[in-house]
C-alpha cells in the first residue's frame, strides 16, 4: 500500500476542511448543543440523577461521542459518494500509483480526523457552558473508545458511500440504521431501562460498547474491557469489509 498516496489524499481532505471549518463548525455544534440545552438543562429538574449523576452530565459524553462518530460517518459517506459519482476524482486517483487500499485508508483517516476535530469542538463548548470538568486521565481513557468508534463509523461511511449510488439512499441508511443504533445505545437513558430480556442484545451492539463504554470512561475513568474488545473487533472487521467492498466495486 502506498502511504505517500494515501497521505496526499488525506492532506487534500484536510485542506478542504481547513477552508470550510468555521461554517461547518456552526452546524456541527448547533445540533448537539440544542439537544444538550433541551434535555440536559431543560429536563434536568424533572429527571434528577441518573445512575448517581446529574442528567446533563449523563448525556454529555454521549453527545460528544455522537458528534464525533456522526461527523466521521458523514465525511466518509458523502466524500466517497461525491468523489466517485459526481466529481469522478476517485477515478483520477486510480490511474496514479496509489492503491485501492490507500484510497480507502485515506478516506477512513479523513473521516476519523473530521470526527475527532468536531467531537473536541462540541466537548469544549459543553465544558464552557457546564461546571463539569473531566480529569485528563479520564479523557485519555475516553479516547480509547472514541478512536475505534470513529474508525467504525468511518468504515460504515466508506461502505455506504461505495455501495449507494443515489444520495437519497444514503439519507435513508442514516435514518434507518445509524441514528436508531446511536439512540438505542443508551445515549439518553441507562441500559437498565430496557426489559431484562433485551438488555443482553443491546449490550452486544458495538454502538452500545462505544456509547456506554465512553460514558463510563469519561465520567468515572473506568475501562470496560468487554466493551473495548467488542468495539475494536467490530472496527477491525468493518475496516476489512470496507477495503474488500471498495476493491470489488472498483473492479466492476
Amino acid at each position, binding site marked *: 500500500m*502506498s502511504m*505517500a*498516496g494515501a*497521505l*496526499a*489524499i488525506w*492532506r*487534500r481532505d484536510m*485542506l*478542504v476542511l481547513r*477552508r470550510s471549518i468555521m461554517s461547518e463548525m456552526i452546524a456541527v455544534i448547533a445540533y448537539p448543543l440544542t439537544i444538550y440545552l433541551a434535555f440536559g438543562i431543560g429536563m434536568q429538574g424533572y429527571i434528577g440523577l441518573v445512575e448517581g449523576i446529574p442528567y446533563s452530565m449523563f448525556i454529555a459524553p454521549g453527545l460528544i461521542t455522537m458528534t464525533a462518530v456522526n461527523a466521521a460517518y458523514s465525511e466518509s459517506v458523502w466524500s466517497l459518494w461525491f468523489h466517485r459519482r459526481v*466529481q*469522478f*476524482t476517485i*477515478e*483520477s*486517483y*486510480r*490511474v*496514479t*500509483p*496509489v*492503491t485501492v487500499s490507500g484510497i480507502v485508508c485515506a478516506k477512513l483517516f479523513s473521516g476519523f480526523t473530521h470526527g475527532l476535530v468536531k467531537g473536541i469542538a462540541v466537548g469544549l463548548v459543553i465544558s464552557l457552558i457546564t461546571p463539569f470538568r473531566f480529569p485528563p486521565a479520564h479523557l485519555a481513557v475516553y479516547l480509547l473508545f472514541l478512536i475505534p468508534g470513529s474508525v467504525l463509523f468511518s468504515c460504515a461511511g466508506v461502505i455506504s458511500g461505495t455501495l449507494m449510488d443515489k444520495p437519497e439512499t444514503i439519507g435513508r441508511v442514516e435514518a434507518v440504521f445509524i441514528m436508531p443504533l446511536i439512540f438505542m445505545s443508551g445515549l439518553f437513558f441507562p441500559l437498565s431501562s430496557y426489559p431484562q430480556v433485551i438488555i443482553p442484545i443491546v449490550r452486544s451492539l458495538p454502538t452500545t460498547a462505544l456509547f456506554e463504554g465512553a460514558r463510563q470512561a469519561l465520567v468515572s475513568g473506568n475501562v470496560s474491557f468487554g466493551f473495548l474488545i467488542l468495539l475494536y473487533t467490530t472496527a477491525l472487521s468493518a475496516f476489512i469489509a470496507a477495503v474488500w467492498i471498495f476493491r470489488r466495486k472498483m*473492479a466492476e
Partner: protein
Amino acid sequence: MTAAITTRSLAKRYGNLTALDEFDLEVTRGGIFGLLGPNGAGKTTLIRILTTLMRPTSGTACIEGFDTASHSREIRRLIGVVPQENSLDRYLTARENLELHARLHEMPVTSYRKRIDELLELFGLAGRQNDFPDSYSGGMQRRLVVARALVHHPRILFLDEPTTGLDPQSRHAVWDYVKSIAGSMTIFLTTHYLEEADQLCERIAIMDHGKLITQGSATELKERLTGGALYEIEFGGNADAFAATLGNLSCIRKLTLEGNRATIELEHWECLSALVAALAGNEIRRISLKERTLEEVFISLTGKGVRE
C-alpha cells in the same frame, strides 16, 4: 523495439454482452495513435483496460512491456490519462489540483513545483492558477485536465475524447497543445470527431462491435476505401449530354451525374488524360480532385445506423 501498447486476443464480456472481442492491436512508440468507433464500439472498455481501471475477461494487454493484469502499479507510473469527464477537484485551485496529482505520483516537492510552473505556462493557465476550476471555461478546464495528466512526465498519454463538448476555438487550442507535446511521448487518442483524428493522428484504427476493423494512416484508409481517384467535373451545360461519352470510357469505375456536374471515380489517376481527351471540345468549367474524407471511410465501415 518494444511496442508502446500491445493487446493479444483481448476480450471483455459483461454477461451476454461482448464489449471487446479477440482484440489485437499494436501501437508503436512515439506519435499520435487514434482509435475511432461509434458509440458502444468498445473504445472506453479498451481504454479502461489499458489504463488498469478494468480487468479483461481474457487475453493480454501490455503497456511498455508490462502486463496490465500483473503490473498495474508500474503501468500507472508510466501513463497519463485524460478521461472523458473532467474529474477535476472543484474544491482545490488549479495549482492544487496539479500538486495533488504530483504527490499521488510521489514526486519530490522541488521537482513538481518547477514542472507545474512549466505546464501552467504552456497551457496558458498561469494567470489563473489560484482560481477554482468551476470558474474556468470548458476549454480551460480541459486544458487543466491535460496538464494534470502530464505532471509526472508520462511515457504514454491516453486522451479519451479530449475535445467533446468544446467549441471550435477551444477544440483547436487543445489540438495545438496536443501537437506541441506529441514528440516526447506516445499519445493514444479516442475521438468521435473524425476531423480531429485526421488532423492529429499519424495512425488510426477503426473498431466496431468490440472488434478491430482496420488500421493505417488517414491517407491509407482513404485510399483503401476508394481504390481510385475521384474527380468532379463541372460542365457549361447539363451533364446528362456527356453520359454516353463518359460511359464508353473503360477506366471509369463509377459515374454520377447531377445537374451540370459529374462525379467520376477513375480506376487510377493516369486515366485522367483519357478522360480529358474524350471531353475535348466541350465546354468544361472546372475539373477538381475530390478528396475522400475520413468520415466517408468511417461510415462505410461502421454503417449509418444510430447507436444507443
